[in-house]
């Protein structure tokens, strides 16, 4: 045993001699080569000298997403001479709370939910950004004011401050489907919510199953349903009602909210409409759920999920050919425009330094957005970022939806207090899909909200 352990030891230690900083010297797109990039903003960076300074960045991205973000960071490091290290964690939410409270926070934190950032800001653990950043976001981003508002929280003393820039967006109002399956069955992509409901009934009448819905997500089970309800909220009520709902000025058990939950019920509370029947909705993992689209014979025809979901499609599925998406449509008979539901990650300073300030400026420059766009799995609301650089047609189409949205609203559950948006709302949706009534579920959530201080 001793000998084998030793040889394993040696083999592994030899394998590990790769220098972890080395990757930052290699830039994936040669500066200046591809003229579609906004290289001017990269050249400007070179004027800043941060050599010898260290910058720690902490965020939720792991695996291939981490790799891509590392590639982006490399440009900042190269231009300024700063030593930047990014670390990711799937328990980001817990760790940033611990680190920030304990005073050992990284310089930059990337929050997947603005709600969590707001919580930390209220405890005085975030550093407010200056007016220049705020003005730039307002000017450079599509629907700039809304991105500013989303990053404006109360500080310790109750004053409103601007705390971060959004980098990388997710588009939620999407329905995924297989164009070939639609062709085989003779279905058309619906343009309105009325059409979508008619199509749902049509598929069921033809003996097929219209939807795959899976709410399972381990400890976060239930969240996919919150997206459904939010999307339907935006399609049944004006956007300002949605905003009031987020702030609990419209109560959770308000008939308008209950109505949106019941709209979701129209799709999910029907054994003929969902794959596996009502019982399977909460029991199916959201990562397995989209695979039903590509089964033989198809288990379902449509799957409503955010722009990240292709990561969970089977390997051989090619976007644009085997799978495509359409906009989750709005009602023709309600004059509410075409609202878009989205989400995004917020870059904030948790430990102030000169390098951190410069990094924030970098994160809101077009080149930072373009560098990830040109890789994969990135949507940007930055107007200065060249949409030609999107790596896939699918992403480009989604980018356009995001860019030209008349009404853009952020994922409500990410904005609500953590105990609601990442707790009671999830649990409520699971209970609802298991047969509780929409009223009782909504009342239960409101009760939890009331119990918060």
């Amino acid at each position, binding site marked *: 045993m001793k000998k084998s352990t030793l040889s394993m030891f040696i083999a592994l230690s030899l394998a590990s001699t790769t220098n972890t900083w080395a990757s930052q010297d290699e830039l994936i797109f040669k500066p200046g080569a591809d003229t579609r990039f906004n290289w001017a903003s990269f050249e400007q960076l070179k004027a800043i000298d941060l050599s010898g300074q260290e910058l720690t960045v902490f965020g939720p991205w*792991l695996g291939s997403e981490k790799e891509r973000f590392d590639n982006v960071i490399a440009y900042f490091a190269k231009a300024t001479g700063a030593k930047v290290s990014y670390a990711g964690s799937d328990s980001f939410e817990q760790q940033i709370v611990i680190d920030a409270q*304990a005073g050992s926070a990284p310089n930059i934190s990337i929050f997947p939910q603005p709600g969590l950032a707001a919580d930390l800001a209220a405890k005085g653990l975030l550093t407010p950004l200056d007016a220049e950043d705020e003005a730039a976001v307002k000017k450079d981003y599509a629907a700039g004011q809304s991105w500013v508002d989303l990053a404006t929280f109360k500080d310790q003393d109750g004053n409103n401050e601007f705390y971060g820039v959004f980098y990388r967006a997710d588009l939620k109002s999407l329905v995924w489907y297989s164009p*070939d399956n639609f062709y085989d069955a003779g279905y058309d992509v619906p343009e309105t919510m009325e059409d979508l409901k008619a199509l749902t009934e049509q598929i069921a009448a033809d003996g097929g199953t219209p939807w795959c819905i899976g709410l399972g997500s381990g400890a976060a089970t239930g969240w996919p349903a919150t997206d459904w309800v939010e999307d339907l909220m935006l399609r049944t009520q004006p956007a300002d009602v949605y905003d009031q709902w987020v702030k609990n000025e419209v109560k959770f058990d308000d008939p308008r909210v209950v109505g949106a939950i019941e709209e979701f019920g129209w799709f999910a509370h029907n054994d003929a409409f969902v794959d596996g029947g009502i019982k399977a909705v909460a029991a199916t993992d959201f990562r397995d759920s989209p*695979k039903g689209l590509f089964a033989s*014979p198809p288990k379902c025809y449509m799957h409503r999920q955010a722009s*990240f979901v292709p990561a969970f499609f089977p390997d051989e599925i090619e976007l644009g050919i085997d799978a495509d998406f359409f906009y989750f449509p709005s009602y023709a008979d309600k004059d509410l425009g075409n609202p878009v539901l989205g989400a995004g990650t917020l870059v904030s300073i948790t430990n102030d330094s000169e390098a951190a300030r410069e990094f924030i400026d970098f994160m809101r420059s077009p080149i930072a957005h373009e560098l990830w766009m040109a890789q994969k799995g990135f949507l940007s609301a930055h107007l200065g970022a060249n949409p030609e650089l999107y790596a896939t047609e699918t992403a480009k189409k989604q980018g356009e939806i995001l860019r030209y949205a008349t009404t853009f609203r952020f994922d409500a559950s990410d904005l609500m207090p953590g105990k609601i948006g990442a707790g009671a709302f999830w649990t409520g949706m699971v209970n609802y899909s298991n047969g509780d009534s929409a009223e009782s579920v909504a009342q239960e959530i409101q009760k939890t909200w009331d119990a918060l201080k």
Partner: protein
Amino acid sequence: MVTSKKGSALTMVVHATVLFLVIMWTIPTAGLFISSIRDKDQLSVSGWWTALSSSEQKIVYRTPDADSEIQENGLYVLRGNLLEGGSGKVVKFGISSLKPEAFEPGTETQDRRGVTFKIMANGDYEVTSDKSFRRGVRIFYTAEVPPRFTLDNYRTVLSSEGLGQSFINSLTVTIPATVIPILIAAFAAYALAWMKFPGRALLIAGVVGLLVVPLQMSLIPLLTAYSKIGAIFGIEAKGYVGIWLAHTGFGLPLAIYLLRNYISGLPGEIIESARVDGASDFVIFRKIILPLSFPALASFAIFQFLWVWNDLLIATVFLGNTEESLVLTGRLRELLGSRGGNWEILTASAFITIIIPLLVFFGLQRYLVRGLLAGSVK
């Protein structure tokens, strides 16, 4: 151990019971193991136990597009094999998602667009059209496929960058974090079991009480203290010494509790006679107690090793999760991606992390026996 002489029936019962329990306890792990050598997409569509038998699979195949078509007699033809060289047998096929099992292999059929399909049982297909193929066409088929295994999952995990570094980090954390608490706890346990001093019972109760402290509650106060101490001495708050002590602190109550129980059960006469001979408590501890408590020390060592080895929370809090400091569990979690969808990676990595603890268990199992021998020689 002594076996009952008249108990051949009893022995049979013992064999049967143990066998039954072993099977019950092993099935879940076996499931994990088999899942780890299965194809990723199979994992969520069929049970792992079916992996061992040949199975009927329904598959959608998309032919290549115009790039691979050839022209014959004015027609465009695509040829290939559905099974792509793998073994198996096509039993049914179809050309529409509505009727994926409409035809027997060997027959020929035509779709709405006038494309002709011909599929053989061995998977060979021929698709002909009078127009060029703008994109590949879909063929639905049902195949009898023999079991198929892959080591890809293990390859992905083992070839991930920085794994070796993390392996060393894990060992650097685990070995001292196993040895130090045992050392400290053994002394304390001996004092609590055999030395006379005021407040002994109270201390024992205190140890039991501290067993229950949820360590999550301690993280923030401790890390705050670390940061302050680090600031005073101008050193990093996160480092190896910090994590060893943290693991030691969290592991101590159980270590003291278990070891005290064992040590207080050792025969008192030996200790008394040694004292009469003028040996100090330190000598008694070193010469008598330590060798005699090997089984208990070894069993605690196993558990402490496991906890530290499998820990992620304490390591990320007290050591951080930068490239240089990531431990093995952290590295493997990283492979799962931001939304944790890669279960096939998880299954493989679970088996890779399990290897070292099992080696430790095998290694220490001998000491469990040696301790027994030392005890009975006395």
